[in-house]
């Protein structure tokens, strides 16, 4: 155990990613050790919007993520796969600092968004989360109308003024709001299904519609990056395929990072895939085709072919 620790410390200076168990890892090819620069190369670093460096997360005494370094290129879909409890959701929640909401969580390392560390003091969480939106595993619309759900973010941020006082001051942005609601719902491929009942409660929608509503709600605050935490795991196959199509469509305009435990889904929709394995390590991160067809690591091959859960 001490051996592993020293090794980790060594590597944290930057030679390899998630290779805390190099000794146990059986590799297929010659190149079992990659330098940091080589990883960068695989990480499409020239257009990285998010750049994670030596990220460690602890829940109390539990070391949930170990020395994660990876770059996420913009306007693409990055899938995070791995078995349950491997830390992929934790990693995702680090990117817009949603882990701050968990009292026992402690984060070390840096997450750079457009070159700025989001974990430095003085980061404006409101602005950060406006730029890096999030969609959760279970659809979680507010118990409000569809319109109120979509307009919730902009209204609370003061980008849209509604209500009695606004109308008295002559600053009622009803038209802007209508446009925004329609645009967001169209982008989320929900407009055609709900345009005649925007004032109905969102809880009356089906699960798949609710999840697309949550995506639309996220789009309404105009983010650059959308984090999705297993967005289709609570949905049926038809709704899932709609969400998948939507993700591919969104990647033209937005950077999408999606956690999934469904490997076929990752293979279908993502441009690059990061494989987390038990213990909170990032074992391999590469273009999706490479991961699924010819992974470097034996463990990753075992995992993606279903030999190891």
């Amino acid at each position, binding site marked *: 155990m001490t051996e592993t620790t020293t090794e980790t410390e060594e590597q944290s200076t930057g030679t390899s990613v998630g290779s805390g168990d190099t000794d146990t890892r059986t590799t297929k090819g010659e190149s079992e050790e990659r330098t940091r620069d080589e990883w960068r190369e695989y990480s499409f670093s020239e257009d990285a919007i998010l750049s994670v460096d030596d990220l460690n997360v602890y829940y109390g005494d539990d070391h949930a993520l170990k020395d994660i370094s990876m770059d996420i290129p913009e306007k693409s879909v990055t899938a995070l796969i791995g078995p349950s409890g491997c830390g992929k959701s934790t990693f995702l929640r680090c990117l817009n600092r949603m882990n701050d909401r968990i009292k026992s969580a402690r984060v070390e390392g840096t997450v750079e968004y457009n070159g700025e560390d989001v974990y430095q003091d003085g980061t404006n969480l*409101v602005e950060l989360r406006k730029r890096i939106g*999030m969609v959760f595993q279970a659809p979680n619309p507010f118990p*409000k109308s569809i319109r109120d759900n979509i307009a919730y*973010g902009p209204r*609370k941020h003061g980008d849209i003024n509604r209500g009695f006082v606004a109308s008295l001051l002559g600053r009622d942005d009803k038209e802007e709001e209508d446009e925004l609601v329609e645009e967001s719902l169209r982008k989320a491929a929900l407009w055609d299904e709900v345009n005649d009942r925007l004032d109905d409660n969102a809880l009356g929608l089906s699960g798949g519609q609710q999840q697309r509503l949550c995506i639309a709600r*996220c789009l309404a605050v105009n983010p650059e990056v959308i984090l999705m935490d297993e967005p289709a795991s609570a949905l049926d196959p038809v709704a899932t395929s709609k969400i998948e199509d939507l993700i591919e469509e969104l990647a033209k305009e937005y950077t999408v990072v999606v956690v999934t435990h469904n490997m076929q889904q990752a293979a279908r929709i993502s441009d690059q895939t990061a494989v987390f394995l038990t213990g909170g390590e990032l074992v391999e991160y590469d273009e999706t085709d490479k991961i699924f067809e010819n992974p470097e690591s034996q463990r990753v091959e075992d995992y993606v072919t279903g030999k190891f859960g």
Partner: protein
Amino acid sequence: MSEAYERSLVVEGSSAYERVSAAVVGVSFVAFLAAIGTFFGWVPLAENVAGFVAARYFGAVLVALGFAVAGLGVASRVGMFETAPDDSAGLVAAVVFGMLWFLTLGFVAQAVGIGAVGWIGALAAGVGLAYATLVSSEDIGSTFPVAGFLLFMGALFVAGAVTPESAWMSEAFEATFPGTVVIPTATIMGALLGGWTGAKAYAGYGTRGRQNGAFLLISLVVFLVLSILVLLLAFVFERGVAVVLENLIIGAGTALAFVALPVVLLSRRAYRRGIVTGTGTDAVSSYVRFAFLAVFVLLAAGLGYAFATATSLSYGSVTLEPTTAVGALPALVVSGVLLLVARAADTSTAETDREQLVARLARLVVAGLVAGALVELFVAEIGVPGVPFMPIAVAAVAAVSLVALVASYARDVPYPRVLPVTVLLWASVVAAVHVLATGDAVAVAGVGIVEGGTVNWPFLMNPSQGLGIQIGVMPAMFGTIWIVLGAVVFAVPLAVGAAVYLTEYAEDSLFTRGVDVATNGLWSTPSIVFGLFGLAFIVPRFGDSPSILASQLVLGFMLLPLVLITSREAMKSVPDEYRDASAALGVSKWRTIRSVVVPAAMPGVITGVILGVGRIAGETAPLLLVLNGPNFPGSAPGVLSSFDVGFGLQPPFIHVSNPALLERASALPYQLYAVITAGVGAEESFGWGTALVLLGVVLSFFAVSVASRRYFRRKLQQ
């Protein structure tokens, strides 16, 4: 292979066994009701009915039930019918029957004078019977002990050994057991046991039988609880209604305004959803609604006829006079409610530029009218002497909107008709406020809004004149209303704020747990302790005299813990997903609380307010100390009229005082206590009237709360 099972899967029709068991259940139920009825004098017990004392019939029923129950047991045992009894009636039945027989025999022994030896014998018999119940087959074990009890008690009553006149004074208990108590009690016990056994026998004993028996007992308990509630309300209503309604005179115009409310609401519903919709119970309830609508329409037609022909109707001491004017307060209430309805119905949006212009203009006009009304209410009447401005403005606005309404129907244009109706209702609200503020009528040829005189309700509108010549409870009623309102206004924001802090900001710690324990403790604190605290701490700091303000604060302290507890529970049950979703959109915690957490918790908060108001409105003990006014004050506390707002050049520049809040007053429960304890015979009916008004005040608060809770729930759901 069906021989492998003892009983067939499907049984068609009902056997004689089932019919007899069902009859046992039915007769038991009737006997149960009749026995309860004797307590209230609805069912005769000591009187002669068809030649016999009524108590003997109770005995006869018990004997009949006893034979039937025993017969059911025997028939099952000898295999005349297909049943599935267990090997034993079970421990519960054994203990119940053992206790029953132990007590019965013990009392009998006591009555015939055997005393202590008798009790020991009874104990031995009870234990023996419990053992016998336990070891015998279920069909015998659960029927024979019951049948024995029924036959024994029934025989006593039939033979006249126990009559309603008999009274047995036990030396051991220092209590008297009159026949009027023993007979119904034994009948209730017998009916419960007989019904229980009958229900078990109906399903053929065994698992299904026990389930049936348990179901019967549980439904009886539910029935009992409901009947207690209904009984209480009905009893107070019956005693108090005549006093409350004495010499009530109501104008036909005002009555019509109140009848119009349900007519509008019901017909709107019928219009939107169809008169008869749905199937089964839905259809039934829509028929009921339709029937209500018809009744109200008929009522309205009758009232219209009454003032068309200028006849005055009277029923008892209630009179309906053919005045056409509407009182200002009723007009305010009715048009206010209708405004809410119109607002809820307003789904139209102004499409074209012209429509938008009209809508904006209408809003402007309404705003102007409301501003004028507020000025009149708080500052002074608007207009030059002799020419009041507001009535003219109101009449003009009302005329224009009437014309617009008629025109929109006549031309059949797709025009938002809600708009002229809304403006019209606002005009009526403003007119009512004008009448209230100035006392001048807004009426043409007797049709319109006048200040008072259309309703004369002595019990509610007059102060009491003192013992012996009491008339009304108005001062006490307003005292209660002001105190409850003040307590709610004081306590609810504090409690909700504390709940927000404890749930959303404070981490779960020793501190929050301590606060929880303390809150629960505070809620269970006796109210007289609150009163004493108020007397010692609050009263010296606010005018050094018991006052309305002190009472508001003390009752607010009492309300605080309950609202805090329920608000906290409601906020805890708001799913964390909402908070996560809001945080992920970059919305700050405070805004999340305001726009997601508190609205979602609102129904729970209001539930707390409902429960709390019910308690504090009826509080007497603390008011004895901190309100302590005259028992029969001559005038109501003028809280609204004695607001004194002064402006000055020195800080704090504005200076508000309200002497009425610092005066002693009376409240309904307090006055009720005074009336009942005065000990002058004739006052009891006055007390019942006071109680009914108190009930009415509490139920009105309750109705408002329930309506607002429903509003918030619907907002969350649709």
